[in-house]
């Protein structure tokens, strides 16, 4: 499936996906708000511009792999997948419910289109590196993308994976780091400081790009550039605003692991639909 979206269309899509996320979380009654909203632009870029994939053939051998190491942000992935045609939009409201294919954290065996299960931070990074290595062994040409989070950098396993990928110069590997500066207990730099982050990856022999993760064009350009980096894996540090799009959620770490309630969801959806008041006459 290769429809050519304009930037404006992609921005509209990202906004729609944000609304999907709010509705899903409200219906589920639990789940993570900040990360998914912050990453809506990244996932829109991936599913609608960057990835080589076929929603009707989720196991297509030549597809680009999209790994998700920070599994808790999966609601935004589900929304992007539904919008892309992997499964009906109506299935989104089954998030976290009994017998749903849309498990609270991605369950590989339940939903075609996922590359692996995740949730425990740091694990997906090794799996992604393993997949990239497999491609090299098999002489395959696809890319392996992996979305990870900043809090996750505190897990030792993550650096084991980074060290390994640097050694093997896995140039088919592109990590996208959601640098939103928050984690459960507060701001990352207060909980367990990560900076200087760029220099850390460079020290491990990765190529590093830093972008505004809420700017679709920058996300797309960075991903396309990463594909051309020849001697190293690439880490795209994507600075995002947690809760992006909903003003009372933005930059507040308390929204990391909480869903909106009825009232909050209504407010959030209104904001998203009217582009923060830019569109008048929206009726509920």
């Amino acid at each position: 499936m290769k429809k050519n979206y304009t930037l404006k269309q992609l921005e509209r899509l990202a906004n729609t996906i944000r609304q999907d996320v709010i509705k899903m979380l409200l219906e589920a009654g639990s789940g993570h708000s900040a990360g998914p909203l912050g990453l809506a632009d990244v996932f829109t870029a991936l599913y609608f511009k960057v990835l080589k994939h076929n929603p009707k053939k989720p196991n297509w051998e030549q597809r680009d792999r999209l790994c998700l190491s920070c599994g808790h942000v999966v609601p935004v992935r589900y929304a992007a997948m539904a919008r892309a045609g992997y499964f009906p939009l109506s299935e989104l409201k089954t998030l976290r419910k009994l017998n749903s294919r849309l498990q609270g954290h991605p369950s590989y065996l339940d939903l075609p289109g996922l590359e692996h299960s995740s949730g425990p931070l740091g694990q997906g990074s090794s799996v992604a590196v393993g997949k990239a290595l497999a491609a090299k062994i098999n002489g395959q040409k696809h890319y392996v993308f992996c979305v990870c989070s900043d809090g996750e950098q505190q897990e030792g396993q993550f650096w084991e994976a980074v060290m390994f990928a640097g050694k093997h110069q896995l140039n088919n590997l592109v990590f996208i780091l959601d640098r939103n500066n928050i984690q459960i207990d507060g701001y990352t730099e207060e909980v367990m400081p990560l900076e200087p982050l760029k220099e850390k990856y460079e020290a491990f022999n990765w190529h590093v790009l830093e972008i505004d993760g809420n700017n679709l064009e920058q996300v797309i350009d960075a991903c396309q550039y990463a594909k051309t980096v020849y001697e190293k894996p690439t880490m795209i540090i994507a600075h995002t605003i947690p809760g992006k799009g909903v003003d009372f959620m933005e930059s507040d770490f308390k929204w990391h692991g909480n869903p909106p309630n009825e009232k909050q969801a209504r407010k959030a959806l209104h904001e998203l639909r009217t582009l923060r008041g830019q569109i008048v006459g929206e009726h509920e």
Partner: protein
Amino acid sequence: MYNSSLLKNLFGKNIKQIPIRNGYGEGLVEAGKKDSNLVVLCADLTDSTRSRGFKDKFPQRFIEVGVAEQNMAGLAAGLALEGKIAFCSSYAVFNPGRNWEQIRISVCYNQANVKIAGHHAGISVGPDGATHQGLEDIALTRCLPNMTVLVPGDYMEAKKATLAAAKFKGPVYLRLAREKTPVFTSLKTNFKIGKAEIFKTGKDITIIACGPLVYEALKAANELEKEKLDAEVINCHTIKPIDKKTIIDSTKKTGKVITIEEHQVHGGLGSAVAEVLSQNNPVPMKIMGMPDKFGESGQPQELLDKYGLNSVQIIKEVKNLLK
């Protein structure tokens, strides 16, 4: 009556002694020849885990990960999800010890075709001491859904178990010992995942063992015969899925059971057998193993003797139960 496939001169002084881990190493090479999709990962223990043979023969399929067992398990899962058969080796204390959570989710929850080889299992590891003696690994692995747990009894069986693991679709844990131990089975001895083998038939008491201690159980049975005590010895190499039928049938016949393993008494073979019997055929039982203690430095046989993991102690426990 001893299983006819066992070594003819079972208790001879010149019985060959080969480390179980050698069987694994040779099994890897043979499995690697059969399937070009087989890859082997190692965490800085290439020689010790006998992965050297595979590395020399198939260097492009050998992956050195350094001292990073958690990454090793994740890499193995990633490779397996892309169609590889991924074996990963380290000492049992680290693999599944250190990377248990990665095995839980990246391997088992994904049903990834990964084989975890836990080396240096048991107290007979010797002088390295407690930190390197894997005594809890059976407990750690058998509680995981989708995991198959194999504990080969000798070098021959280890090779078969490795090949069987390679053929099997899904996560497998292979428990491997360090020291030279008696080779008492032959090529003809049956090995089927999930099937416990009766190595000696008897009617007075059932002795169930796994790993090199199966030989100690046979030695004990041999001595007991001299006192007209007829023990049935079962080689329970598959802890999971455990062969309920063989265990229940045997204990229905004998009415008493002793288990022995180079593992804590909590959570290993003994516990698995107790789970079966308490629910299907409760009989008087004794679980022999490490008595909820860490190991220590010493010579392998010294340590086994100190903690009563030998035929002499088995005989004592048999007589206790038969009182």
